[in-house]
């Protein structure tokens, strides 16, 4: 008799393979983007919290045909790691621009169906003057203005009154509003096209305050060079994707101004 080893669900053509039931309240998203701030943050959280991958995500036509081998075991390219009521999403391959809308929509729908209450999108805010900034600033936007204000007070973050957000986090934000899911977009001043562990450290310290965690960033900063060397190629691929998905819109003003 065949005993199923996992539960599968397909949302928008994306396969969600659950190895364990996903019982989390908060999901932190570490998709590759500006300065790889989200990806570096996610990797550090997974390591420091000793998280376990509980969900694998794939799409055989929209993603490159890869199987990621980790400790001798094949894994799907996008994974959700979890511990207690916290989850972290990472991807080993950048999402191609053509797959971003369907993936982003599928992710929000899947999270909502599993009872996730808050999605935290972590990303860099490309700042050409980053090299001169010792302590990067934190900026927040979100689906629920009351919640953003509450979190902003905790972090002493800066507001973004006007601007354009481009990429998967833009769709995740819009879809979260549609489905009444709390989404916070946590942005930190960062290099645009160089991996920025310093900005990721600031993002983690912000998450510590939001989620009452106590994650040390010393090791992240000590291993900065190794992380940057390791993620160099992912940054190159991500830069390519950012250019093609219209990331440049983020660097121009909006149509209507106040």
């Amino acid at each position, binding site marked *: 008799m065949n005993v199923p080893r996992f539960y599968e669900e397909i949302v928008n053509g994306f396969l969600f393979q659950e190895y364990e039931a996903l019982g989390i309240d908060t999901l932190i998203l570490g998709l590759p983007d500006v300065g790889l701030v989200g990806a570096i943050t996610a990797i550090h959280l997974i390591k420091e919290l000793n998280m376990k991958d509980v969900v694998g995500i794939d799409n055989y036509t929209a993603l490159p045909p890869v199987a990621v081998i980790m400790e001798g075991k094949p894994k799907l390219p996008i994974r959700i790691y979890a511990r207690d009521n916290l989850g972290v999403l990472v991807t080993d391959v950048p999402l*191609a621009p053509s797959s971003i809308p369907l993936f982003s929509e599928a992710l929000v729908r899947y999270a909502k169906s599993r009872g996730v209450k808050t999605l935290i999108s972590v990303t860099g805010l490309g700042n050409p003057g980053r*090299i001169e900034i010792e302590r990067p600033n934190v900026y927040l936007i979100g689906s629920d203005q009351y919640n953003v204000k509450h979190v902003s007070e905790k972090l002493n973050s800066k507001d973004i009154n006007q601007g354009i957000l481009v990429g998967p986090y833009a769709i995740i934000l819009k879809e979260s509003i549609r489905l009444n899911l709390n989404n916070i977009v946590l942005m930190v001043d960062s*290099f645009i096209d160089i991996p920025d562990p310093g900005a990721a450290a600031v993002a983690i310290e912000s998450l510590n305050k939001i989620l009452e965690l106590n994650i040390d960033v010393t090791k992240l900063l000590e291993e900065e*060079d190794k992380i940057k060397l390791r993620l160099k190629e992912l940054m190159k691929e991500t830069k390519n994707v950012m250019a093609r998905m219209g990331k440049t819109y983020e660097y121009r003003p909006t149509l209507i101004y106040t």
Partner: protein
Amino acid sequence: MINSGNGETMSAQGDPFEEMLRRIYREFRNIIDQIERVYDEEALEDVFYERTRQYSKGSIEPLISIIDLGDSVRIIIDLPGAKESTIDVRVYQDYIHVTASLDERMVRDAFPELSWAHRIRRFEGRYRLPAKIDVRRITMEKKGSRIILTAPKI
């Protein structure tokens, strides 16, 4: 109007004109998706050839960020794991050339899954600048693994 389960909007009355528009839109979306996939595949092909070419030479290309400051250009070259005494940056009017030897231990730590197949020994990259610069008035500083060059445009 009603919303179908798969997210498509349908006419409750089955208006043939609206149905036709919907089909046209779907076909158009399919064509756009196919074009985008070709672009994605071409970009991946470039990355593949560039990466294999570098690895076969035992080098990797450093990441650089070029920022246009109006009257001047700022170039940030990131060389994590480079041996400081071997860093060589040559600046010309419209391009720069960077080489540096890599710390082998750092390479093994950073790429344990690659080091058996490729012996990566150094950084090497040549980059075209967005404008001609005055190389005599260039300034340079180093912050961690990053070298920052600032030069006025000609």
